[in-house]
């Protein structure tokens, strides 16, 4: 069990930043009504953020990444099961990578 100072600093910084996000809503957003553009912006944020993260991860892996992403999406859409979709995505990714050049 070790606790590296740099790692601990990064973890604490993440914890403070996350607490600030949580507290900002309670302390600030209840008094200041965000405008229409900001509300629309925040509404789009979860989806665009996940796309912005997933796109390079998929592109980096080429065909295997695309097969894995497609399988994940199809199974999630069909069954709504996160474990099932992760299993299908990893399996498709693994299979294409094993078969590919």
């Amino acid at each position: 069990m070790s606790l590296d100072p740099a790692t601990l600093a990064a973890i604490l910084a993440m914890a403070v930043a996350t607490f600030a996000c949580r507290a900002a809503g309670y302390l600030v957003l209840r008094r200041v009504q965000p405008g229409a553009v900001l509300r629309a912006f925040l509404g789009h944020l979860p989806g665009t953020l996940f796309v912005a993260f997933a796109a390079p991860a998929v592109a980096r892996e080429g065909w295997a990444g695309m097969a894995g992403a497609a399988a994940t999406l199809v199974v999630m859409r069909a069954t709504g099961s996160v474990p099932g979709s992760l299993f299908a995505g990893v399996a498709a990714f693994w299979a294409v990578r094993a078969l590919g050049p």
Partner: protein
Amino acid sequence: MRIAATRAGFLRGARATLPLTVGLLPFGLVVGVLAQAQGLSALEQVAMSALVFAGASQILALELWADPAPIASAVLAAVAVNLRFALMGPALAPWIDAVRGWRRWLMVGTIVDHAWALAIAEMRAGRHDALFYLGSAAMLWSAWLITTVLGHALGAAVALPRGHPLFFAAPACFIALLVPFWRGRGDAAPWAVAAAVSLGIGPLLPNPALAVVAGAVAGSLAGALRDTAGGGRG
């Protein structure tokens, strides 16, 4: 409106949340395995999961982890993914106001999707017990620690090499969550902008977390400006 804060409410919140903890298992395992693979000790993993308590931001930060630990990208990942918690505060504010002292800030510090959704459902059903929220959050927090610790132990036992296909589970978590996030055809253009910006300018930026933030901001801004143009549809 009369808001209670009772032990019974706490227990009801914990009980209502128990079935949802099953859904945390895959995310917790992914976070634990990823943390182990990126060189976090069991204690460091527990510290992160206990203090940050926000799965998606932990996955993103851990994907971008390096040695020494990258403080800037960890903070960027935390803010980018967890900004949504700010939107949950106002609806929960009446309950937060109803408790005092450390319990109030514990409630603020444990704002998280599942507990928030259950609390809103309680409010709509006309049941107002602020400790319902803390019971729900405590149940989720415990399950989060257990599943991430399991993941870390699993990662240590199997010792997967870097680049093993199983690590595709981390981006797959985000890809799977895109399905419930999809609100309709209006999301297509913002999502395309986000992907294009992230892929296009990502390699030019000094920090991979910046590519994610740039893509998300560009896509959301494009969507927000389109939605509010003409004043009608937003």
